[in-house]
């Protein structure tokens, strides 16, 4: 069974009398260890889609199965549990806790798992080492460069060993060199067996992924395996 299965997922926003169909009957399946990019023009529904995948938002219609769980049937606490255990979310604007240092930020998801301080610290240190930031652990977010902040965010997403990593324009706020470094990190994670799903509108970024899904007006316009396309 697929790691992620969505069928007939729609997300509608009511703006006064107008109905905005941010997502319109989307069906997707994603397998374990896939490396998928969702692309499309601005307003095509990419972020909405990723937020639904990350259980931050509920779809208006449709079914979502994640790792065997039927997400629609879960309550607040179970969703929080899923966000904590199954999903690592990486944002375009990093979204670090401003008053906690790098280490504190990476330890935070483990707080919600009732893991003791020492073990938390150990796991967070390991994750920061993984993204090459072991010498910046006690820096506050505003004492770090954009690339370093995104690495902290990635460490925070990784530290819980989630089933899937979701990244919404992870390089959107970074220069091209730093973007390359971040993408190199993603490639490595994928090689180690991590399932990765990212949203981007940059060709260069999408090219790292094995599968590219194109959204248009809330619908899937094209879905192709890059290896096939390359042949």
């Amino acid at each position, binding site marked *: 069974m697929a790691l992620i299965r969505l069928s007939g997922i729609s997300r509608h926003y009511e703006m006064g009398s107008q109905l905005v169909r941010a997502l319109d009957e989307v069906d997707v399946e994603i397998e374990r260890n896939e490396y998928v990019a969702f692309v499309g023009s601005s307003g095509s529904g990419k972020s909405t889609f990723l937020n639904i995948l990350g259980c931050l938002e509920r779809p208006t219609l449709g079914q979502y199965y994640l790792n065997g769980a039927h997400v629609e049937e879960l309550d607040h606490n179970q969703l*929080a549990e899923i966000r904590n255990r199954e999903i690592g979310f990486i944002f375009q604007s990093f979204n670090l806790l401003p008053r906690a240092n790098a280490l504190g930020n990476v330890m935070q*998801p483990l*707080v919600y798992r009732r893991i003791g301080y020492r073990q938390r610290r150990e796991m967070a240190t390991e994750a920061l080492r993984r993204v090459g930031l072991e010498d910046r652990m006690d820096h506050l977010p505003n004492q770090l460069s954009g690339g370093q902040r995104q690495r902290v965010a990635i460490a925070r997403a990784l530290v819980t060993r989630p089933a899937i990593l979701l990244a919404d324009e992870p390089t959107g706020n970074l220069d091209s060199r730093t973007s390359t470094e971040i993408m190199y990190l993603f490639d490595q994670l994928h090689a180690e067996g991590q399932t990765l799903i990212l949203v981007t509108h940059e060709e260069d970024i999408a090219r790292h992924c094995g599968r590219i899904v194109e959204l248009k007006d809330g619908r899937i316009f094209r879905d192709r395996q890059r290896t096939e396309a390359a042949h």
Partner: protein
Amino acid sequence: MFYVMLESTRSALISILAHGLRSFLTTLGIVIGVASVIAVVSLTQGMSAFIGESFSSLGSNSLTVQSYTPIAEQMRGVRARLTPEDLELIERRAEGVASITPILYGSSASQVRYAAQTTFSQIMGTTYAYREVSQSYVQLGRFIAESDNLTRRRVTVIGSKVRDDLGLPENPVNKYVELGGEWFKVIGLLETKGDFMGFSQDDIVLVPYATMRSLQGNQARTDIQIQLSLSENADVEDVTRQLTALLRNAHDLSPDEDDDFVINTAEQLMNTFDTVINMVTLVIGGIVSISLLVGGIGIMNIMLVSVTERTREIGICKAIGAKRHHILAQFLIEAILLSLLGGLIGLALGFGLGAAISSSIESFPPASIPLWAIVLALGFSGFVGILFGILPAAKAANLDPIDALRYE
């Protein structure tokens, strides 16, 4: 649960410290409320502990009988009196009395002189029994004896303040002092009792009752005060009833006339003081609960601001797996810590204030805070924290993750 509390306390402390000044200003309402409670309680407690001690040294099983003339009667020139005959009557007829003594006050304050020094003091004529009834013992020399009364000896027992005021030697026994124009030999010095509510208890001159009467002559028809102490198993109310009946009969009062005397017990006096003190405490308590309410609203206000400011942070926490109760606990504990902090500062401030006031007013009893006041102050400020923290905390906990993340 403990784990959540611990982690929430950790992060609450971080955020309180991050806004040091704001946190302090927020707690000011609580600080002022608690400080005033503690200051007032520490003062009144010190006072009532002191009053309690003073009265027990007075002898809690003693009674005082005084004449009493209502104002309306006084206007008509009538004066009620207690006479030596009343004293005799009580001595003869009342049961349950261990010792009894008359006190005859000199007309207003009289001049007391030793060598070139003079002072004014209340002179009291009394008997040997005064020693037991009012628990006044001599530190030097001897007390007035029965024979002093029988022979109307011109001897006196003085308090230490009188000795100091007159510049008498450390041991004034056998010196002569002039009381209202007559010479008296000092035979004893009373133990120092200290001040009571700003009045020195050592500014006292005792002479034999009979001597005092003979000196006053027929100048006025004497009005005495009677002090008596009860025997071991006598009942205060029973003795009071007996005395009332005896005196009403002796004074020829008809059933529709009021008593022309009052009988006070030390306990009654003490209860009156306690009532007054409790009233003061209650009134202040009312004012203080208003200020705690205002303080609580201040905390609620700043917590609401803080929730709004940190909406995005709350969104982040929810995105990485925080459940409602994690967020709730964090903000609630922050509110509780804030108001407990205020409570602690207030406690210290209030105690300092009470101590400063009591030490700056001479002869005011030292301030003391009972444990219950500390527990109550902290308990109450913690309660205020919960009461006014729950709304902002619930608001934070119920935020939708994606809405919170999108908040600008």
